[in-house]
C-alpha cells in the first residue's frame, strides 16, 4: 500500500483504498515545518473514475476549475473547513446541522468546525439546489465518514498498530496505548481523499457520493441532537454581515429595469430620458429589456420612473385573469397535451365502489408569491476577457452559472457566481435564478462596467415566478361503518417550475427549454406528479392523478414570459395535501366522526398514530365530530372551531391542530392557536428546528388567511404589500411546537417546511367546525369565507 520510491527524498507516496475512495498524496514530513492537510476532493463518474485518477496528479482530475477545492479539509491545527455549494436562506442548516453532521462523523468537537464556505461556483465543490438539505446532508455524512476512515488508516501506519485497534474520540485517535490527534497526524502532509461522485454539477439536482462507508452508530452520537447556536446570527444583528445588496465594485453603475407593461408586451418605443433633469443617467435597450443606469442610485430610480411613464408597449392579453383562473384550469385539463400522471398509491377501481354516503367536492388553491421582504438585487462584472463575475443571492449558483453561460454563448468556465446572504425567498431560486441576475450580466456586458440591478417592489411582485395555482376534484366514498371505502382525487394545474431567465427572454437571448411535456431538462416539465404522499394506508381503494400543463400566457410567440411557476416550500405537495386534508375533514363530518380519530382509524403507520395521539393531548383537542355543537354560519357573534391536518414529507411525520374564531357575518377569521407535533426521526438541532417550525407555521397561517395573487389579462396587479398582504405580528396566534425525537428510525429530521403546509387545511377545517360550512377555496379572505357561509 505504501510505496517509497526514493528513500533519499524521504517522502512517501500514499495510495490507499478507503471504502471505494482513494487516499492519495505525498508525505513530506520533516520538510514542511508547518501546515498540512487532508482534503476531500471528488472524481466525477463514480467508482470506476476513482480508479483512473493518477496518484501523483489527483488534483488535476477534479471535475473543473471550480472544483479543485476540498469538500472537507482537516488541517494540521485541528480545525476543519467545510465547503458546500448549498446556501443559507435563514434556516441556518449549513452553519448548524452540517457542522454537527461532519463533526459527529469525524468525531471532533463542534468547535473544530471553524469555517463554512458556501455557494461560490469558483470555490465550493458541489452543486444542486438548496433544497432537501438533510437528504443532501447524507453526502456530507458520507464524505466525513470517509475522511475519518482514511485518517484511521493513516494513523494505523503512523502508530504501527492494527487499524482494528484504533478508535477516535474528541479529535484524538488512539489504540494500544498510543494516540495521535488529527492535527499531528496531518502535519507536513499534503493528502487528498478522492471520492467517487455521480450526477451533474450544474444541473438542479447536483452531485451524489457514490460510496458507502461505515457510518457512526446513531447511539454513539454526542453532537447531533444538541441545540447549537447559529453562528451567522451574531454578525447579522451587529450589522457586520455583507449582504448581497451591500456588495459594491469600483466604477459600479446602479440600474433600474423598466419592465414591460404586461407579461407578453414588446417595446414599441421607449420613453424619453430627460438629460437636463437626470444628467448622470443613461438609457440602455437590449431587445425588450430596457433599463436606466446611473452612478447615483436615487437618480436611477427617478429617471427610470420618468422613462417608464413615457414607454409604449404592445397590448397583450394572454392571461385568463385571476377571476377566470378556475375556468382556465378546467380548459387546460382537457386541452393541454400534457399527459396526466398516476399516483403511486393507486389501488383498486374506485368506480366500482358503492358508497353508503359520498363526498364529491372541488377545491381551489390560488397562485401565491414567495414575496421576499427585499426585492432581488444582483451585481455583475463583465470583463474584457469575456469572463463574468456575478454577485447574487441564489439557492443554486451552479445552475445559474450554466444558464448565464448559455445566455452569453460562452463556456461555463467563464462564469463565476458568488453568493451572499439576502432576503429569504423560499425556493424561488432553487433552479438558479430569482430575477435580476441575467439583467445585471447583460447590462454589464453592454456597458463594460460593473452594473448593480436592484429590482423594486413592483418588479419583484410582477416579474418573479409564483407558486402555481391548482384545482382538485375529490370523491370520498364511505361504507356502512363510516369508514373510507374509496378515495379519488384529480389535481390540475400548471407545471411546477419555469427556470428560464426573464431578462434573457426579454432581450431575446438563449435560454433553457420552455416548459413542455417532452423536456427532461431540470424541472421544466409541464407534467405534474402526485407529490402528496398517501398516508391513509387502510383505505382499500385509492386513485390519485395529476394533470399538468403550460403556464398561463406561455404559449404564443417564442420568448413569451407569461405567469411562470416556481416551487415554494413544499411545492405541489401543499397544493395537493391541502384539498386532501380538507376533504378528509369533510368526510369525517359526513361520517359523524371526530376528524382526529377518523385519521387514526385510517392511517397505518405507527409514527402517525403516535403523533396524532400526542396532538390530541398537546392541542387540548375536543374529542367530538364536526361541526361544533355551537356552530353557526350567520350572525356577528364569534364562533369557535378546531381543525386538524397531517402530512408526510421527506420521512418526516407532521400533525397540526388549529383553533379559530370566526365572525360568520363578516367572514373574518382569527387564528387563536396552532399546535404542531413533528416526528422527523433524528433531530439534529432541536433549537433551530423549533425556530424553523414556528416561523414556517406562521408563514403558513399567512398563506391560509391572506395570500392570493391577483392578475388581469396581461399583468400581475398585486404590485406591493397593500395588494398582497401577509401576516402581521398582531395576527400571530399562540404557537405550540412539539418535537418528538425518534432516533430509532435512523434518518435525519427533514422537511421543516411542512409546518407551512399544515396550516391552511387545519384552519379551513376549523372554520368548517365553527360554522358547519365547508371551505373549499383558499385563502380564507373575508369575502371567500362569507361566500362559503351562504353556499
Amino acid at each position, binding site marked *: 500500500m505504501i510505496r517509497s520510491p526514493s528513500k533519499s527524498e524521504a517522502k512517501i507516496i500514499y495510495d490507499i483504498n478507503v471504502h471505494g475512495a482513494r487516499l492519495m498524496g505525498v508525505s513530506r514530513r520533516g520538510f514542511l515545518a508547518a501546515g498540512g492537510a487532508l482534503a476531500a476532493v471528488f472524481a466525477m463518474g463514480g467508482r470506476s473514475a476513482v480508479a483512473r485518477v493518477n496518484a501523483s496528479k489527483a488534483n488535476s482530475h477534479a471535475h473543473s476549475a471550480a472544483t479543485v477545492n476540498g469538500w472537507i479539509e482537516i488541517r494540521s491545527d485541528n480545525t476543519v473547513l467545510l465547503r458546500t455549494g448549498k446556501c443559507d436562506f*435563514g434556516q441556518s442548516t449549513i452553519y448548524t446541522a452540517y457542522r454537527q453532521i461532519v463533526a459527529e462523523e469525524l468525531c471532533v468537537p463542534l468547535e473544530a468546525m471553524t469555517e463554512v464556505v458556501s455557494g461560490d461556483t469558483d470555490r465550493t465543490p458541489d452543486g444542486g439546489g438548496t433544497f432537501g438539505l438533510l437528504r443532501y446532508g447524507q453526502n456530507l455524512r458520507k464524505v466525513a465518514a470517509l475522511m475519518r476512515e482514511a485518517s484511521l488508516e493513516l494513523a494505523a501506519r503512523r502508530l504501527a498498530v492494527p487499524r482494528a485497534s484504533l478508535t477516535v474520540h474528541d479529535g484524538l485517535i488512539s489504540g494500544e496505548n498510543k494516540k495521535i490527534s488529527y492535527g499531528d497526524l496531518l502535519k507536513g502532509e499534503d493528502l487528498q481523499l478522492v471520492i467517487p461522485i455521480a450526477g451533474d454539477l450544474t444541473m438542479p439536482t447536483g452531485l451524489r457520493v457514490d460510496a458507502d462507508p461505515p457510518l457512526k452508530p446513531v447511539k454513539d452520537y454526542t453532537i447531533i441532537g444538541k441545540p447549537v447556536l447559529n453562528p451567522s446570527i451574531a454578525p447579522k*444583528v451587529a450589522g457586520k454581515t455583507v449582504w448581497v445588496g451591500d456588495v459594491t465594485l469600483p466604477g459600479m453603475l446602479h440600474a433600474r429595469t423598466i419592465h414591460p407593461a404586461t407579461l407578453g408586451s414588446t417595446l414599441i418605443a421607449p420613453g424619453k430620458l430627460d438629460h437636463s433633469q437626470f444628467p448622470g443617467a443613461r438609457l440602455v435597450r437590449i431587445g425588450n429589456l430596457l433599463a436606466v443606469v446611473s452612478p447615483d442610485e436615487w437618480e436611477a430610480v427617478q429617471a427610470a420612473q420618468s422613462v417608464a411613464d413615457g414607454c409604449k408597449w404592445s397590448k397583450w392579453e394572454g392571461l385568463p385573469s385571476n377571476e377566470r383562473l378556475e375556468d382556465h384550469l378546467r380548459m387546460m385539463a382537457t386541452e393541454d397535451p400534457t399527459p396526466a400522471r398516476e399516483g403511486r398509491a393507486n389501488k383498486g377501481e374506485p368506480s366500482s365502489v358503492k358508497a353508503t354516503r359520498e363526498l364529491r367536492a372541488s377545491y381551489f388553491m390560488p397562485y401565491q408569491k414567495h414575496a421576499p421582504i*427585499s426585492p432581488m438585487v444582483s451585481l455583475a462584472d463583465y470583463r474584457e476577457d469575456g469572463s463574468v463575475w456575478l454577485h447574487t443571492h441564489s439557492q443554486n449558483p451552479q445552475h445559474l452559472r450554466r444558464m448565464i453561460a448559455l445566455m452569453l454563448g460562452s463556456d461555463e468556465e467563464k462564469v463565476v457566481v458568488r453568493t451572499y446572504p439576502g432576503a429569504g425567498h423560499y425556493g424561488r431560486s432553487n433552479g438558479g435564478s430569482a430575477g435580476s441576475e441575467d439583467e445585471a450580466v447583460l447590462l454589464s456586458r453592454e456597458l463594460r462596467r460593473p452594473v448593480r440591478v436592484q429590482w423594486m417592489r413592483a418588479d419583484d411582485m410582477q416579474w418573479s415566478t409564483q407558486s402555481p395555482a391548482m384545482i382538485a376534484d375529490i370523491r370520498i366514498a364511505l361504507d356502512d361503518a363510516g369508514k373510507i371505502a374509496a378515495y379519488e382525487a384529480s389535481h390540475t394545474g400548471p407545471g411546477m417550475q419555469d427556470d428560464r431567465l426573464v431578462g434573457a427572454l426579454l432581450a431575446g437571448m438563449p435560454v433553457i427549454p420552455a416548459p413542455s411535456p417532452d423536456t427532461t431538462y431540470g424541472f421544466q416539465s409541464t407534467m405534474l406528479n402526485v407529490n402528496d404522499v398517501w398516508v391513509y394506508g387502510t383505505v382499500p381503494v385509492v386513485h390519485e392523478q395529476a394533470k399538468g400543463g403550460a403556464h398561463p400566457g406561455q404559449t404564443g410567440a417564442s420568448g413569451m414570459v407569461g405567469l411562470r411557476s416556481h416551487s415554494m416550500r413544499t411545492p405541489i405537495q401543499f397544493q395537493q395535501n391541502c384539498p386532501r386534508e380538507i376533504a378528509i375533514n369533510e368526510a369525517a363530518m359526513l361520517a359523524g366522526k371526530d376528524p382526529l380519530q377518523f385519521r387514526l382509524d385510517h392511517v397505518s403507520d405507527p409514527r402517525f398514530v403516535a403523533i396524532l395521539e400526542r396532538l390530541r393531548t398537546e392541542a387540548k383537542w375536543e374529542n367530538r365530530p364536526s361541526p361544533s355543537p355551537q356552530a353557526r354560519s350567520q350572525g356577528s357573534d364569534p364562533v369557535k372551531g378546531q381543525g386538524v391536518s397531517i402530512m408526510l414529507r421527506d420521512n418526516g411525520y407532521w400533525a397540526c391542530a388549529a383553533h379559530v374564531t370566526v365572525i360568520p357575518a363578516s367572514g373574518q377569521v382569527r387564528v387563536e392557536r396552532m399546535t404542531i407535533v413533528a416526528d422527523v426521526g433524528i433531530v439534529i438541532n432541536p433549537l433551530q428546528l423549533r425556530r424553523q417550525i414556528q416561523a414556517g407555521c406562521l408563514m403558513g397561517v399567512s398563506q391560509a388567511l391572506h395570500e392570493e395573487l391577483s392578475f388581469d389579462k396581461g399583468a400581475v396587479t398585486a404590485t406591493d404589500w397593500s395588494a398582497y398582504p401577509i401576516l402581521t405580528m398582531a395576527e400571530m396566534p399562540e404557537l405550540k411546537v412539539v418535537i418528538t425525537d425518534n432516533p430509532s428510525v435512523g434518518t435525519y429530521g427533514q422537511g421543516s417546511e411542512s409546518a407551512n403546509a399544515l396550516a391552511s387545511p387545519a384552519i379551513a377545517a376549523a372554520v368548517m367546525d365553527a360554522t358547519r360550512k365547508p371551505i373549499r377555496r383558499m385563502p380564507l379572505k373575508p369575502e371567500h369565507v362569507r361566500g362559503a357561509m351562504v353556499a
Partner: protein
Amino acid sequence: MSTIVVNGQQRKFKASPDTPLLYVLRNELGIMGVKFGCGLAQCGACSVLLGDEEVRACVTPISALDGKPVTTVDGLPQRWASQKGKLSADTLHPVQQAWIDEQVPQCGICQFGMMIKVTELLEANPKPTDQDIREALTTSGPSPHLCRCGSYAAILEGAHRAAKLMMQGDSA
C-alpha cells in the same frame, strides 16, 4: 455639502435634499445597517431612529431630518454606551444581544427594522406586555413591520429578553 449626525458622528454628504435618507446612508456614508425593503414605507426593513422616533429611511428625504441625529443598527452599541455614560461601546446593545440569545432571525433582512422598532419601544416602555410589543410592531408606525419568514414568535421572545437585559444594564 451638508451634514447629519449618524450613530454619534457628524457626517458630510452631497446628495440633493430630496434624496431619501436610505440612499445617503448606504451609498454615500457606507452605513449598511439599513436595508432596502419596499421603498414605500410598507414593510419597515429600512427603519432608523430619528432622535428617539422610528422612521422609514426609504421615504424620508434627507432634508426632513430637522437636525435630529440618526441611529441605525450599526450605531445601537454606541447609543447604549452613551445612555449608560460609557465612553466607548464595548458590548452590543441589549436588543442585539437578545436577538442572538433567542436566535431570533431566520433570513434576518427584516430584523434591522425590528430591532430599531423594539429599541424605540423599550426606551419609552421598559416593561412592555405582549400586547405592547405586538402593537408597536403592527400599528404604531406607517405600516406593520413585516417578517416573511414568520419569525414573530421569536421576535416577541427577543423583545422580552431585551427588556430584561436593559433593566439589568440599568441596575449595573
